[in-house]
């Protein structure tokens, strides 16, 4: 009799089954690493001159210099704080309104066209309005980021709720779960995957909106760093802040997934 339970992963379908391949996460570094090498070669061999695109090393030096002087941490900290607050707010409001429009046809008819229009307004377009409405303080920045995070959450959740399996809703109805309990025990868990995709999208947009937000009278933050780099024609700062965005974006994405895995409990 053969030994029990082989250890290869199941290969049916795309769903990953945790297994012994611990090194898989490292695969994700392969492509970026290749890109960095390519980048270095392109600049080092002069295909692209260094004043247009600095070498990876030069960018690392610039970042290291800012890190050593402590300046970098201030930029990162303030941007992370803004994104955190803004995304939190946007996700909260998006969840609330997504639930309402997902559940009520009337609410959806009333509000959905408005949101569908507003969702296409670029972040830069909001800047003058937010400046006007909320001034140059932190409020304006956080609210602008919240606007960015709001739409994907709203859109995914309301679609997700409207798509919850009718069969399960009937169960909730037959067993008289009532509005709140149906939501808590049937609708939300069923729409959770949509909500989580929405939250991932929302956090992504929060990072996108941060640059626009930090055009509102900011003198700190990664978005400011980027705009400043552009104004000063400093490609090393530009590329450095792009890398910071990518890195922090990835961190926030890992965090969201972590939360998801906890919540979904898989």
């Amino acid at each position, binding site marked *: 009799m053969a030994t029990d339970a082989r250890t290869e992963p199941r290969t049916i379908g795309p769903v990953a089954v945790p297994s012994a391949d611990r090194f898989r996460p490292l695969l994700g570094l392969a492509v970026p690493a290749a890109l960095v090498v390519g980048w270095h070669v392109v600049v080092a061999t002069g295909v692209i001159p260094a004043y247009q695109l600095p070498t990876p090393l030069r960018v690392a030096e610039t970042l290291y210099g800012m890190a050593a002087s402590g300046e970098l941490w201030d930029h990162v900290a303030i941007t992370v704080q803004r994104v955190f607050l803004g995304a939190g707010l946007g996700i909260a409001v998006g969840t609330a309104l997504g639930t309402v429009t997902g559940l009520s046809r009337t609410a959806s008819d009333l509000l959905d066209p408005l949101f569908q229009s507003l969702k296409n307004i670029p972040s830069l377009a909001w800047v003058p309005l937010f400046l006007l409405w909320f001034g140059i303080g932190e409020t304006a920045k956080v609210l602008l980021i919240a606007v960015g995070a709001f739409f994907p959450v709203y859109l995914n959740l309301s679609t997700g709720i409207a798509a919850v399996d009718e*069969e399960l809703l009937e169960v909730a109805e037959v067993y008289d779960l009532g509005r709140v309990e149906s939501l808590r*025990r049937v609708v939300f868990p*069923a729409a959770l995957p949509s909500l989580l995709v929405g939250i991932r999208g929302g956090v992504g947009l929060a990072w996108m909106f941060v640059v626009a937000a930090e055009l509102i009278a900011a003198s700190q933050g990664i978005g400011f760093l980027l705009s400043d780099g552009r104004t000063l024609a400093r490609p090393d700062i530009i590329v450095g802040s792009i890398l910071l965005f990518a890195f922090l974006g990835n961190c926030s994405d890992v965090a969201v997934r972590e939360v998801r895995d906890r919540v979904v409990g898989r």
Partner: protein
Amino acid sequence: MSSDADADAAPPAGKAAAGSTGDPVLAVDGLRKRYDDTVALDGVDLAVADGEFVAVVGPSGCGKSTLLRVLSGLEPQFAGRVAVDGTDVRDGGSDDVGMVFQEPRLLDWADVRENVAVGLPAGVDPDAPAARERVDELIETVGLDGFAESRPDQLSGGMAQRVSLARGLAYDPSVLLLDEPFSALDRLTKADQQDHLLDVWEERGTTVVLVTHDVEEAVYLADRVVVLGGQPGSVEAVVDVDIDRPRERADPDLVELRRDVTDALGR
């Protein structure tokens, strides 16, 4: 055909009066139910007295599930009159109607215990010790002790069906509608569950409508067997089962009645 059926069914045949009150708990008059082009039911009349146990049999696709859905208030669009406890089902009907669907319809993300707890009546806190105890008791009754923490995708087909049955029983309604609740169970498990259902019925005075394809089951359990037929479905015959309980499954009278029902079903 339909008019014959009407004639058969219109005055709730004899036995209905045996129920404790005169007014039927379930009253169906000239029910006609249409899904777009398909007419599922046409001219169905049925009255079920309080505490009565009625079995519904009929060919696949004749509208049995549809009848239960209408009774439970899930299908507000139909013609005719359908009342539960005297209230039109379109006006909300009674809240006290429970239903076990033909498919298990379990919540994928919840374990067996939570799924059964969905059936607990409104107002019962599922985390209260009494409620937990009741849920665990039901899980045991349907033979799933040890699986309380399993998720639906870890259950076999018959096990899932039993979870759905336990959920229906947890609701403890005054009218219980059951749509082929034992179809995925083996003989012995089925017999156990049938007997348990009878116990609950007798103890709680529940009014039960049971859809089944198992004629043996129908005559063993019910006071009355309603035979639906045709597409669109209507009542073809009603067979009274006037045999005292507890019944013997092998009782020759039951076997006789079984033949009557089978004949009514047959072409």
